[in-house]
């Protein structure tokens, strides 16, 4: 009965079965309540006024007419948000992003907000707010932001990571370097060197549910918030810090979440709803429109990446280099740096160097999007890897297998790897029937592999035995893809009871200790670890109760198959005490029975995947159709295989959308031109084939059930897998995603010319 996570059990009764999810019926009958589905007595409608300018000084905001409109109960501006951030730059950026202070930094930046009795009045009030802007020159393209004469967003950014630190401020936030060996020497050894530049456009997570919250602040300072979020504890902490509240006064309840993928790890309008409610003394419901979601939440970085790879004729990569330029939107970030860490992580390289350059531009504040920063660099690296393989006449799978990282490899980001799963995914790809299937005319096959760091983080689980001998489990990680089912499986497995005897709920912030967000592929990994430990603690109590009942020592009681059993020669004939019997006797044996675990689930282990893609390119129109797609990824242990497959398929679909269609398009005026699902086109059902999956199960030695996070890695390889398939289908090398029909057509025409 150990709390050591490095103990992997390998035989299971319920883990690995495809049970029905506990929230299924509510979700197919319309009963499940999402962010916008809650109401409070007397609630007002909150709306936000947003800057139409990419970059402008806010000279004056006149709210007097709006305040006088009948039915308007509160109007707020940055004046309602005194700076409580106390020198914390990250928090100050969040504050400034939630409500512009001296300058509007992007099209969509909030400048004021209103709460009124109904939506019509609130809309009317927004029109009555007069903002006096002084329009400034703007910059929205990543390569332009670094130029010496680029419009300056902030006067307090002095490039970090350059010695000596510049004395003049710029948009160049940070430079970082990773790698080892001597790349110049490595390139001298190479028989073939491929050097190319790539661009990727900005994409949005595209969750179907817009952000929505219902905030209620009482005159005594007590506050409640219902909100769709990937991390209600983090939302609580950040909102409380920004508003100068004590965290315990703000109770946040998470709604069902209609998708997040990283976009709901950040607070956006929630502090505005709370501030409006505080000022109006009424509950305020604030729901973003789709236009606001695109303009004013956190998409990815658009990027510009140079890659150079050299190899010998025998297929050994001798040196690899990349320079990555990413933006954090209007605020500083480390997005390029994360790309620099992950870009070459799949390979065993003697000489490797990556240089990252992060900048700011007049676009919304970048947020994480599923394995953040990595799909972009993977596109650049894996496209180049294919070209190198082609140049030396080697099959791309064999070339990757030859150079794949393995146990003992010094990773491109520094540390030496322990046991890792890139090799098995590549071998599985090589042997997959998909690799050998014949291809139709104008169809090409591509592949790519990808890497992502997973992590664990702070996690807290309460497990309670009900008086009738069933179990409730309170967790603090948001269920984004079926984790309540997986966690019930874990507790049922550990306790030896049926799946149906366990009910898992996501607790609010006042009833459980702090939990980090559901991000970094950590939700199921970390909460299942905590659930195992909580259950083991409860089992100890259950054994103690049985020992008391039987009046025998604790060490003569074991827990097996949902019951306490007396062991030892003198107890041979004693009937087991079931969970139900012990629960019924609880009042007389010491009271309620519960188990808790408060842990940091460190050491999550890294994750690898290999994808295979068949793409048909219509050479007349430039349209690409994905005709077959296979995802191969290690799950450690798939607790609920259907939901693991779902993560693989969903990530692949998002990556295909990124590869072929999705992009933010900014006009010369710095305004987003396609802030809606009609013009920002995510894949629909008729765009995609079935997405085959192969789950590898190489137990993660650092989880009691061998589980590995599976949420993110599946979005990493598709951009490159699709690009390589397009190259093989149409003979064009696409160095710019999305590979939309006009871009492909242009490349085909250039090839012919």
């Amino acid at each position, binding site marked *: 009965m150990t709390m050591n996570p490095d103990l992997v059990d390998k035989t299971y009764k319920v883990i690995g079965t495809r049970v029905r999810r506990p*929230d299924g*019926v509510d979700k*197919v009958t319309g009963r499940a309540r999402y962010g916008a589905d809650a109401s409070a007595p007397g609630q007002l409608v909150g709306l936000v006024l947003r800057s139409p300018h990419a970059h402008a000084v806010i000279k004056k905001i006149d709210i007097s007419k709006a305040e006088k409109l009948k039915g308007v109960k509160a109007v707020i501006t940055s004046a309602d948000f005194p700076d409580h951030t106390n020198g914390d730059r990250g928090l100050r950026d969040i504050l400034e992003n939630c409500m512009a202070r001296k300058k509007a930094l992007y099209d969509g930046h909030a400048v004021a907000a209103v709460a009124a009795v109904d939506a019509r009045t609130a809309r009317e009030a927004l029109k009555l707010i007069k903002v006096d802007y002084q329009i400034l020159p703007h910059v929205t393209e990543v390569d332009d932001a670094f130029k010496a004469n680029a419009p300056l967003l902030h006067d307090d950014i002095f490039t970090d990571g350059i010695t000596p630190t510049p004395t003049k401020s710029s948009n160049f936030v940070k430079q970082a370097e990773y790698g080892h060996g001597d790349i110049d020497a490595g390139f001298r050894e190479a028989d073939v060197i491929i050097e190319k530049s790539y661009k990727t456009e900005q994409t949005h997570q595209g969750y*179907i549910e817009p952000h929505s919250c219902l905030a209620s602040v009482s005159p005594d300072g007590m506050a409640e918030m219902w909100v769709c979020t990937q991390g209600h504890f983090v939302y609580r902490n950040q909102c409380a810090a920004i508003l100068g509240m004590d965290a315990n006064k703000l109770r946040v309840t998470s709604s069902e979440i*209609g*998708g997040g993928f990283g976009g709901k790890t950040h607070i956006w309008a929630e502090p505005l709803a709370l501030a409006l409610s505080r000022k109006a003394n009424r509950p305020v419901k604030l*729901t973003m429109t*789709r236009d606001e979601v695109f303009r004013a939440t956190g998409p990815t970085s658009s990027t510009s990446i140079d890659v150079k790879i050299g190899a010998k004729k025998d297929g050994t990569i001798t040196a690899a280099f990349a320079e990555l330029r990413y933006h954090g939107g209007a605020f500083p970030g480390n997005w390029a740096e994360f790309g620099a860490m992950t870009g070459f992580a799949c390979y065993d390289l003697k000489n490797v160097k990556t240089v990252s350059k992060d900048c700011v531009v007049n676009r919304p504040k970048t947020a994480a999007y599923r394995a953040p920063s990595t799909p972009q660099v993977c596109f650049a690296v894996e496209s180049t890897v294919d070209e190198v393989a082609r140049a030396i006449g080697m099959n791309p799978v064999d070339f990757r297998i030859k150079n794949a990282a393995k146990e003992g490899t010094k990773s491109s980001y520094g540390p030496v790897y322990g046991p890792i799963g890139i090799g098995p995914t590549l071998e599985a790809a090589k042997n997959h029937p998909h690799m050998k299937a014949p291809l139709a005319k104008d169809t090409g096959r591509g592949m790519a592999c990808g890497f992502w760091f997973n992590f664990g983080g702070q996690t807290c689980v309460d497990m309670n035995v009900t008086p009738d001998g069933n179990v409730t489990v309170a967790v603090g990680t948001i269920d984004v893809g079926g984790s309540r089912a997986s966690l019930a499986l874990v507790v049922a497995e550990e306790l030896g009871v049926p799946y149906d005897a366990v009910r898992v709920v996501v607790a609010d912030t006042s009833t459980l200790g702090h939990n980090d967000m559901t991000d970094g592929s950590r939700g199921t990994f970390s909460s299942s670890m905590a659930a195992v430990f909580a259950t083991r603690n409860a089992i100890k109590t259950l054994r103690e109760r049985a020992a008391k009942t039987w009046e025998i020592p604790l060490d003569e009681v074991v827990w097996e198959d949902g019951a306490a059993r007396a062991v030892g020669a003198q107890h041979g004939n004693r009937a087991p005490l079931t969970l139900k019997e012990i629960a019924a006797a609880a009042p007389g044996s010491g009271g309620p029975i519960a188990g808790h675990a408060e842990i940091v689930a460190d050491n999550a282990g890294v994750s690898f995947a290999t994808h295979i893609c068949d793409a048909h390119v219509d050479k007349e129109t430039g349209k690409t159709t994905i005709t077959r797609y296979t995802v191969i990824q290690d799950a450690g242990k798939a607790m609920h295989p259907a939901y693991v497959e779902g993560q693989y398929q969903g990530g692949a679909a998002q990556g295909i959308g990124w590869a072929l269609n999705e992009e933010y398009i900014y006009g010369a005026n710095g305004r987003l031109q396609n802030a809606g699902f009609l013009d920002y086109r995510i894949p629909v059902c008729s765009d995609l084939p*079935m997405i085959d999956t192969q789950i590898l199960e190489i137990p993660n030695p650092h989880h009691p059930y061998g589980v590995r996070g599976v949420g993110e890695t599946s979005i990493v390889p598709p951009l490159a897998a699709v690009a390589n398939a397009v190259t093989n289908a149409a003979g064009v090398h696409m160095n710019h995603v999305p590979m939309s029909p006009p871009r492909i057509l242009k490349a085909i025409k250039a090839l012919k010319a």
Partner: protein
Amino acid sequence: MSVHVKTTINGDQVEFVCGADEPLLDVLRNRLGLTGAKEGCGTGDCGACSVILDGRLVCSCLVLGAEMDGRSVETIEGMADGAKLHPLQQQFIDNAALQCGVCTPGFLMAAQALLRKNPDPTEEDIRFGLAGNLCRCTGYDKIVRAVQAAAKEMRG
């Protein structure tokens, strides 16, 4: 200006008063408490607000509440027969065809409309029949399989 409307929703007689410019979606969600239809975009691009109006699939954000007088609306809340789920609903659960679930009511309405017209659809029929509905979690694979399984079950 407000309009008084008498209509049928999920077989029940319903009366409401709404603004002349108020979308059916807002009437359902804000006036009638039927929050199963979701607003994903408000512009008819995502299908999360799909309902069946006089037998035809529509985005409830694109029709007005005022137009409902004398007509018949089916929403997700009326799909199950009491405690018995519709085969589509059951197959969505059994095939893990939902993750976050926010698009699910719209998909079920769209699938319902599709199978009424075409009880034996091919995979392509299903993919095009559901192309007006966006799902960002699943990659559609399990949704298509769930509709195939339900169609088979309903054909008997």
